[in-house]
């Protein structure tokens, strides 16, 4: 019965991580802030380590760190004094620095801390699954509720403001939601590899369609496929699931790029 439960949790986890990460991925990829995923995932990792050191729930601490990063990035991006990639780079290096600082400070074995770096979908618990499920539902709800605002934000943020869209509030919501998604996924796929599930399915979908609705749908399918295929490979080879999940998403991206109707290799060959 226990084996049965662990299998169900793993598959459900793979599907939920795939959906949540790939949906938020569509927004960050199309807005040209893909690096936000790396930044947030490392902040979540640093937060989780701080939680272990302080004896607080690491997931809650990871949430707090991600929200701090979102709270810093939003105003920096609004002021426009520093380019987004520069501010992301500074916050990324700070998070990485904190992670390396915190890791040796963990008393005793470092395996608890490293679990958040590599992740293990096979060990996710009932409560992890509940958080993942809640974050996935919120993400889907956000995309449906704010679809038209997301469309115009992706198109042009200044034009969105000029049209009377609460662009700043929605941008901040995107940052916080990205943080929440990454934190919820970190135990399953790890702080290093969650970035792959944010960027790759969305980047693959970006190659295949000009319709944003379809892009959300295709990205979710690719996200779920990456999660499930990765899990299959992990069972088959008896290795942790994070790496095969990330690599499956890379393979999907590569295939999508080759067959892309937007100047993919096959498209160009047919045209010639």
């Amino acid at each position, binding site marked *: 019965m226990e084996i049965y439960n662990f299998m169900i949790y793993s598959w459900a986890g793979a599907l939920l991580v795939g959906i949540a990460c790939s949906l938020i991925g569509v927004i960050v990829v199309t807005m040209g802030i893909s690096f936000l995923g790396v930044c947030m995932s490392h902040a979540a990792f640093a937060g989780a380590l701080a939680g272990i050191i302080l004896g607080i729930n690491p997931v809650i601490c990871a949430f707090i760190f991600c929200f701090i990063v979102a709270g810093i990035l939003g105003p920096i991006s609004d002021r426009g004094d520093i380019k987004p990639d520069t501010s992301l780079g500074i916050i990324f290096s700070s998070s990485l620095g904190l992670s390396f600082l915190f890791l040796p400070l963990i008393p005793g074995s470092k395996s608890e801390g490293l679990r958040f770096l590599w992740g293990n979908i096979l060990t996710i618990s009932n409560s992890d699954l509940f958080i993942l499920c809640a974050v996935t539902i919120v993400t889907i709800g956000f995309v449906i509720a704010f679809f038209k605002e997301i469309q115009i934000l992706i198109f042009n943020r200044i034009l969105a403001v000029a*049209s009377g869209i609460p662009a700043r509030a929605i941008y901040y919501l995107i940052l916080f939601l990205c943080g929440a998604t990454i934190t919820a996924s970190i135990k399953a796929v790890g702080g290093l590899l969650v970035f792959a599930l944010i960027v790759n399915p969305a980047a693959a979908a970006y190659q295949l369609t000009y319709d944003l609705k379809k892009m959300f749908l295709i990205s979710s399918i690719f996200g779920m496929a990456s999660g499930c295929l990765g899990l299959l490979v992990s069972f088959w080879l008896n290795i942790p699931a994070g790496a095969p999940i990330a690599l499956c998403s890379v393979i999907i991206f590569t295939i999508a790029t080759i067959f892309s109707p937007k100047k993919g290799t096959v498209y160009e060959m047919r045209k010639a």
Partner: protein
Amino acid sequence: MKNIIFDSVSVARAGRIIIKNASFTIKTGECVALYGPNGAGKTTILNLINGLLFAFQGKIVVGDTTLTKNTALSVQLITGYVPQNFEVDSRIPILAKTVVLSGIYGKLGLFHYPSQQHFDKVRKIMELFEIGHIFDRPFGQISGGEKQKTMIARAMMQEPEILLLDEPFSSISESSKWKILEIIKHWKKEKNITILLVSHEKQVIEKLCNKIFYLEEGTIVSQESIDGNL
């Protein structure tokens, strides 16, 4: 009445004053051209009316509203904006019809979705601008002229009381340009909208506007009236 009043307005960016003590009034239904060399502050004036920038000195009044960060939204909802040199990633997943439709997103408000009637109106406006054939085409894949027409159609979709046009015809062919000018002129007369046009083309200005503000280094150095266009 949506008069636009600039009262001793000064704007600075990156430590440099880009608008110096500007004072003028634009009455409802007027069309004013902003004319001057690059960097004179023409686009800045449009951005001030649009609530994208704020003055450090003086005040701007649109209708009954004094523009501040808190009141900008009410002005943005009645202001159509066509930015200059509009470039996007050629693979962006946004269709031309969506761009035109997005003109009403602000007025629709949060949690309200466009209806079939809105899509019908989009098609009608796009056909009026002779871009009906790009209805379902990706915005990034259409030509520069089609992009500019789409952006003007988007502003029209918004049904604004104030229209801000920033070099809106720079990529549009000569024949299309005069047709669109006629559409805007007709529209202005019918709805009594106020227009601010940034353009380097004197012919375009003379066809559409009834007043020209000449700008140099952030200062309005002179004004000129054009008869017959009001």
